[in-house]
């Protein structure tokens, strides 16, 4: 008995000659936040659509809650599923509240749930205005409200923060955190890597329809063995002893650009470099440790 709410096995999607998704295996554990990263055209949205049963796979198998994503049984799964499509589009002639009420009816959620949800995403002041006059950010908020209808157990969010201002992005992740604490499983895609790396439990990096890497942010960093570097501020005349001390532990990559002195080393050497620097009593006046960001991991894998 696994604890996986989503299981993707050897899934392939071909559009004519184009291999949009090429043999993806994936599992997402219940209650986790899972991030999917990749360039445009990497196959993220296609994979999403297959997981939602919107696009049939060419081959392979996807199960959500243990059920295949087609056929009559999947309707029940859909009742507990929230989806925010990339570039969400609504009906211009309806107001925000009417839009939400329409989707609430389809999901079998009472109309009384709509007002508080609009409040939650910060749209209650615009509830009775037509969606036609909404900004991109407001549409995105309405899209999120729609995805949250009926307290879904599983949330699919495709580029959820596009169009949101920094305040909106913060609010979005606050809501996401609340959903997670209520036990929801969340799967999201993003281009803004620095934004999601602190907020996902696991992530997958996609390139050309394939999963290039899969794991926690930490495990990806470690398997990549990306070098890290120290940025130093030195006292007068400290450079020669610094070079000597570092050469003694086999670190010789020292770059000097004007005032900035940086020391590059492998991850395993991190602590010994720190000790060597500490031993240079008083010569190093300040120090920053720079770790590779997920962005570096991402570019390293799929750049």
């Amino acid at each position: 008995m696994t604890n996986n709410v989503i299981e993707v096995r050897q899934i392939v999607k071909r559009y004519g000659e184009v291999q949009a998704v090429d043999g993806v295996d994936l599992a997402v554990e219940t209650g986790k936040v899972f991030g999917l990263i990749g360039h445009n055209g990497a196959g993220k949205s296609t994979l999403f659509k297959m997981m939602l049963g919107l696009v049939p796979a060419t081959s392979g198998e996807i199960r959500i809650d243990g059920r295949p994503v087609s056929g009559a049984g999947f309707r029940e799964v859909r009742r507990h599923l929230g989806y925010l499509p990339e570039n969400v589009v609504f009906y211009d002639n309806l107001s925000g509240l009417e839009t939400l009420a329409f989707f609430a009816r389809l999901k079998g959620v009472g109309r009384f749930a709509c007002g508080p949800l609009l409040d939650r995403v910060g749209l209650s002041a615009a509830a009775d205005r037509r969606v036609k006059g909404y900004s991109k950010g407001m549409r995105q908020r309405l899209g999120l409200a729609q995805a949250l209808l009926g307290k879904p157990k599983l949330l699919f969010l495709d580029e959820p923060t596009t169009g949101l201002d920094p305040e909106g992005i913060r609010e979005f992740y606050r809501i996401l955190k609340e959903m997670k604490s209520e036990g929801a499983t969340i799967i999201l895609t993003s281009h803004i890597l620095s934004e999601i790396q602190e907020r996902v439990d696991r992530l997958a990096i996609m390139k050309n329809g394939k999963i290039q890497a899969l794991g926690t942010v930490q495990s990806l960093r470690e398997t990549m063995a990306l070098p890290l570097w120290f940025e130093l501020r030195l006292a007068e005349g400290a450079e020669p002893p610094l070079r000597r001390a570092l050469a003694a532990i086999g670190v010789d990559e020292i770059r000097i650009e004007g005032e900035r002195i940086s020391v590059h080393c492998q991850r395993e050497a991190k602590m010994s470099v720190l000790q060597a620097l500490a031993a240079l009593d008083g010569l190093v006046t300040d120090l920053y440790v720079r770790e590779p960001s997920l962005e570096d991991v991402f570019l390293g894998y799929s750049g």
Partner: protein
Amino acid sequence: MTILAIEPRQIGIIAAKEFRDRIRNRWVLAVTIVFTAFALVIAYFGAAQQGAVGFRSIEITIASLVSLVIYLVPLIALILGFDAIVGERERGSLDLLLSMPLTRLELLLGKFLGLSAALACSTITGFGLVGLLLGSRLSSNAWYNYAGFMLSAVLLGMAFLSLAVMVSVFATDRARASGGAIALWFFFVLVYDLLLLGTLVVSGGAVAANAFPYLLLLNPADVFRILNIFGINDVRTLYGLTTVFPERLASPGLLGAVMLAWIILPLGLANWRFRK
């Protein structure tokens, strides 16, 4: 299995939205006015070619209205329906809709029924108003004929709506869908009968004569014409229909069933395609 698992509630929600949209953007009102105005003009001036104006017998009026409806209702139905699915697809709202607990068949039926309700509302109100105006001089038999005319006009509209929804599923974009819809109108309303007549004349009546009545059933517009013209004795001879159309094929029950088939088949085809 999936085909049987239909939730009428979901169909109703989609249909109600479509219908409400058409009420709110005044589509229903506009088309009602068009129907009323045309019907009034035709009822009054329909016999102008014969050198007379004014309201005449209901039979002649119905015959004139049938000619109008045959052009107008299919065109309006096709324009109303061609956007149904391809519009959602092109705007980008289809995926969200289909991620709901809603099957594709339910979405199709909801769209179709909501649009049908809008068209039926305009048809019955528009022609009903004119009927009421003529009302004082109508016998109960004439009312029966007029009601039949309105009902068959609704069915004709639904048949072409069904075709429009089918086009909407098959087309890859709105431009193609509108092209397809217009092509269907040309084919069924303008070209089909000419083709039949042409075949009949060119072959000297030998080739298609026996098949002719059946071939007429393959066009919902012709079915509508026969339904209305054949039922009225005065007009039947006027149109010379007795000579080409056998009595046994002219029962309203049978013709109604053919019309229903014209509503169900395109929708069925649309559903088959939509599920792929």
